């Protein structure tokens, strides 16, 4: 499968697209069942996902938390499910919980929409993260966090050193 494509379609949005060699019913399960999700959504090398609680019904809440193996630092995301169309679409809010990493990231929740589309046994997944404002997006983006992916400050330092 072609690698994930990250783009910035508007001032307040980040879009990530990827295709998977599996029918949508399996991809959907991997996104909906915490036991499965924890196995793949563990983030950058050296991080794990010790908390993955989710009640993926409209009005239900979720809580995801990541932990660094190296120093035990944690951060996470929480939010509420706004819309569920089985095997097609899930929309939820997302609020960043800085845990003990400390730094903030916008105030308003962002809206995450994940769409699933199957064609010939291949499932295309598009994840759109809409931030409440451009400032929130730029902040989230430059701290390296998008939809539960976090980048440690170490990586940031490396990038900045190169620049």
């Amino acid at each position, binding site marked *: 499968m072609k690698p994930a494509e*990250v783009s910035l379609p508007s001032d307040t949005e980040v879009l990530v697209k990827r295709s*998977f060699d599996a029918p949508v019913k*399996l991809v959907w399960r991997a996104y909906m069942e915490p036991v499965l999700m924890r196995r793949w959504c563990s983030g950058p090398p050296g991080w794990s996902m010790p908390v993955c609680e989710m009640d993926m019904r409209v009005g239900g809440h979720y809580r995801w938390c990541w932990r660094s193996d190296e120093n035990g630092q944690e951060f996470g995301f929480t939010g509420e499910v706004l819309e569920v169309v089985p095997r097609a679409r899930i929309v939820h809010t997302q609020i960043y919980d800085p845990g003990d990493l400390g730094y903030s990231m916008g105030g308003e929740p962002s809206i995450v929409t994940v769409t699933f589309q199957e064609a010939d046994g291949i499932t295309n997944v598009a994840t759109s993260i809409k931030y409440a404002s451009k400032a929130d997006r730029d902040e989230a*983006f430059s701290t390296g966090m998008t939809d539960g992916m976090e980048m440690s400050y170490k990586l940031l330092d490396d990038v900045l050193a190169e620049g």
Partner: protein
Amino acid sequence: MHMKQLDQAFAALADPTRRGIVVHLARGEASVSELVGRFSLTQPTISSHLKVLESAGLISRRKEAQLRPCKLVPERLKAVTDWLEQVQEIWEGNYKRLDALLAELKQQEKQERKK
């Protein structure tokens, strides 16, 4: 490169016209009037886009020449693309694990059907 500069660069690149200008300048220097012709926009519009790109450090303009041609600052752009690449790598890392998990789920389904 400071965090604030990276923020500015991202903000500057969020606009499609400014991205177009950056792509155009990747081929070499250009004057404002060349850019006006290329993008079919007014001179003040192009100039204001150039100002944003310049203050984000993505382009520089020669002071001595009368036409003040614009030029890409490749190091700054590289810092931005490196950054996007690293964000992409994190997503791709997750997705590769998802590939493996899906292969496993497919296998399980197959075996269950056999039973």
